[in-house]
């Protein structure tokens, strides 16, 4: 049974149909990539899944429930977490606090919300440090988020999403703006997450996508024009024409 399924999910802005009747299924525990040229509607598709934007029509079935149009903070509590394409962190807070806030949000009860000192939640702090260690920021926990390099901020971006212990993890170009070296580190990191989380990945680096994904959906002008495993996608004539071959529709 798929963990998440969209049914003819559509989002239009006036005359522009950014996401056009996208039907897609993601199996529990799999890594499903969404590729496509810039402006194909991939990020808008993520925004619909996480509630940042409400769909114009269509359904999003997550774990048997229709969650289309649910506000973002509720969707987070259902267990969907995302990383952003453009780094979205809390710059003047410490790196530990950045991640700690994600662990606290997912607590069953918010006991002591306005009274207990934030550093008196040993279990959450331990979990936050563990996630930071996993992405390679363990040593820098006490620095402010704005003090670290862009590459490290991308790692932090990922750590914030992981700290929520999500059932569905949406990664929006985790490698955006990274140097070749940093990209390799990021790819290794995402590879380690595979199997432990159900992941939907948006990525431009096609070789990365081909080697890592269980399934790939190709978006073009808002629609899914092809879906399959990496081998099928590489052979797909329309995909080659629209994306891999670099020939853009007139």
């Amino acid at each position, binding site marked *: 049974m798929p963990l998440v399924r969209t049914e003819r999910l559509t989002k239009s802005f006036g005359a522009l149909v950014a996401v056009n009747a996208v039907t897609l299924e993601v199996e529990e525990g799999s890594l499903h990539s969404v590729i496509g040229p810039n402006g194909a509607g991939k990020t808008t598709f993520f925004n619909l899944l*996480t509630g*940042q934007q409400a769909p114009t029509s269509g359904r999003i079935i997550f774990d048997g429930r229709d969650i289309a149009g649910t*506000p*973002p*903070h*509720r969707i*987070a*509590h259902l267990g969907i*977490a*995302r990383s*952003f394409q453009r780094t*979205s*962190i*809390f*710059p*003047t*807070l410490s790196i530990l*606090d950045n991640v*700690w*806030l*994600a662990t*606290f*949000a*997912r607590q069953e009860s*918010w006991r*002591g*919300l*306005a*009274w*207990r*000192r*934030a*550093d008196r*939640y040993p279990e959450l702090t331990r979990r936050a440090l563990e996630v930071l260690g996993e992405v390679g920021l363990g040593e820098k926990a006490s620095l402010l988020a704005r003090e670290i390099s862009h590459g490290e901020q991308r790692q932090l971006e990922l750590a*914030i999403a992981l700290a*929520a212990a999500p059932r569905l993890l949406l990664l929006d170009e985790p490698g955006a703006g990274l140097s070749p070296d940093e990209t390799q580190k990021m790819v290794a990191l995402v590879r380690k997450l595979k199997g432990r989380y159900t992941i939907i990945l948006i990525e431009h680096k096609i070789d990365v996508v081909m080697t890592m994904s269980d399934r790939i959906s190709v978006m073009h002008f808002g629609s899914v024009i092809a879906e399959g495993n990496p081998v099928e996608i590489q052979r797909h004539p329309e995909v080659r024409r629209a994306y891999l071959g670099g020939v853009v529709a007139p």
Partner: protein
Amino acid sequence: MTASVKAWLAILAAVVLLPVFVRHAIATEIWIFAIFGLGLNLLMGYTGLLSFGQATFFGSAAYVAGYLLKFYGINVFLALGLGIVVGAVSAAAVGYLCVQRSGLYFIMLTFALNQMFYFTAYQWTTVTGGEDGMPGIPRPSVLGLDIHRPLAYYAAVALLFLFSLWIMKRIVESPLGKILQAIRENELRAEALGYDVPRMKLAAFVVGGAFSGLAGVLYAMLFGIVPLESIGFVFSGNVVFATLIGGSGSLYGPVIGSFVFIWLSESVSSMWARWPLLLGVAFVIVVLFFRGGVVEAWARFWAWRAAHRAPTVAGADAPR
């Protein structure tokens, strides 16, 4: 000794020494205004919500508690408790409307609603006294202790201030404090993490309103009158001003700001009628060079001194 312990010692020293050097009424007003500033700072400094309507809560509490003190002779604790409740409830109502919008529209809403409360107080002369204010607010004794003597009232207010500061310290160091800062830094991400942003902002309003309410009642009992200005937008602006000068977003900023603002306005104003000019200059300096107010200037001074001292010490040692 940690920075926090040092700050508390400095504040305790100030509480003890202030009435020696400054007129008691002014010294009392400084701590009252500091409580008012603590409430605003949670909104402005920690949550990033510039409220230009804090006098709404301050004034409403002062009028309600003042009225009941004057005509029904309620006791001090009830008056203070009521003030806190009125401050919190009016802040909940105003905040509920304001958090629906952000940026400039948010600021204008806080301001517009403040004006609404102001003109209500202005028109409703039978209760509020309109332009003349509501005079004759008594200062009942506390558990048999007479607080009519200025120093006695000063002590009572100073204790309440210290208590308020401790409460605020707990709040800003709690998860809520962190969440509010996260909202200030990046609302979108805070929401994506699972925080109901409007509700958290509302919480900041209610807490800020409760502090304003407490300050309002203490103010009414200090001067024995609720002046119309106490609910006016100039008063709202003053507390923003004072908090910015002291350092918004730092726990002790509004305390320092209140000291600077009240002391300047009460002492310099008697010597020089154009004293707001001085405030204006201070404000410009803060905005241009020390966005973190006196607190930041102080930290930068010590950092600068440490940097310039190290070589001199080494140089002095060298010849020997």
